[in-house]
């Protein structure tokens, strides 16, 4: 009998606390900010903010490339590829526009590039990527306008010729890095190459 009274008292206290909680206001604060979950490393000159940096080595910013000169048969892009799991080298026809860690005009301005996200781009060395006038030696692929996910084709090579790179134009290049889940994790600065 005593046990029963004791347990009933406990039950009443439990339910009373529930009644009190009914009168309390609900906490409706709920935010999802993908950007805030990313790396805190934030050099202001990176193409995309709040990502870890990738160091570009060459060509240096504003370097000239003389497309007619026979001795200059290739353009070599070098960068430090040690940080990200996956990386993509992009060539743009215009300065990329960005908003909230997205390149908003990427599709429209993409000239070509190469990535290690697919084995179909195999055969290139991430530290030294060559753009040549010959399909058999160039490492670059053209951009893919038919895919919602893939930036580059896997079967159309991009070569250094005046059709793709007119004289007196400016070429912009940058590297983006990705983690194991294919999410952006790294970015380089943007550099220019002046085509002469």
């Amino acid at each position: 009998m005593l046990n029963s009274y004791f347990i009933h008292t406990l039950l009443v206290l439990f339910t009373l606390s529930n009644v009190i909680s009914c009168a309390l206001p609900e906490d409706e604060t709920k935010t999802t900010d993908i950007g805030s979950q990313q790396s805190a490393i934030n050099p202001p000159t990176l193409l995309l903010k709040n990502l870890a940096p990738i160091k570009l080595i060459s060509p240096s910013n504003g370097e000239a490339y003389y497309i007619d000169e026979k001795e200059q048969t290739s353009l070599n892009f070098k960068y430090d590829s040690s940080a990200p799991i996956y990386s993509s080298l992009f060539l743009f026809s215009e300065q990329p526009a960005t908003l909230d860690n997205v390149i908003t005009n990427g599709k429209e301005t993409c000239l070509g590039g190469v990535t290690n996200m697919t084995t179909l781009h195999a055969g290139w060395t991430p530290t030294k990527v060559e753009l040549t006038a010959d399909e058999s030696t160039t490492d670059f692929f053209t951009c893919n306008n038919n895919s919602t996910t893939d930036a580059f084709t896997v079967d159309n090579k991009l070569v250094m010729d005046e059709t793709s790179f007119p004289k007196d134009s400016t070429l912009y290049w940058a590297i983006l890095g990705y983690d194991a889940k294919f999410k952006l994790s790294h970015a380089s600065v943007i550099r220019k190459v002046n085509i002469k």
Partner: protein
Amino acid sequence: MNIFSTTQWIKPSICLVTIVYLLLPILAIAENDRDFHISFGAGLKSPSDDRLSSAPEFTFQLASSVKAMQVGLEGSYQHKVSSNYKYAVPYNQETDKRNLRIYSGFLVLRISPWHLGYVTPYLGGFFGGSYVLEKSVDSPYFEDDLSEDKVLLAGPTLGLEILPNGFFSLFLEAKKSFQVVGNLQRSLITSSDQFGNVVKTTENYDLNAMSFNAGFRLNF
């Protein structure tokens, strides 16, 4: 005003369940036939939505008896309901590995019309709510993408109590849960590209389920 909004129904329902339960000891005392029990159970709950997996469920119950009727409060926890999904990434397909943890509270009603010596079959029903939390298994990204995480459920119960007259008894129970108000609503990634664009979509899930539990009761 949307009368089917889950959040508007949750609080009144919890309050109603609480008030009804507060009256039970008074009813029991009035009948002078008072007893109650505490029970612990475990089992498997299988959702009818095939995007969610079966997962173990653990229950805790406090109940009072008024003659052949038992009324109680039940709390349950369902652990790691797998809710993985695939989405498109550059040149590949990726799996977002996730699971749900489901916390529930129900008002439980049971009737034991037959006493067959060592066993007592019972039937009844329940009504209450579930609150869902989502966890990412191997990545901190895109976590907590539930836009609706509260659901009201109700359904029938069928069970068997073994050695019902002692201080310690065992039970076997089957429950069918029907979603009454609300949906589980998630924001899912459909694709991500190399420029940083992430495309998402919203999908509704229902928590209709069948569960089988076994456990023991302490009868006071």
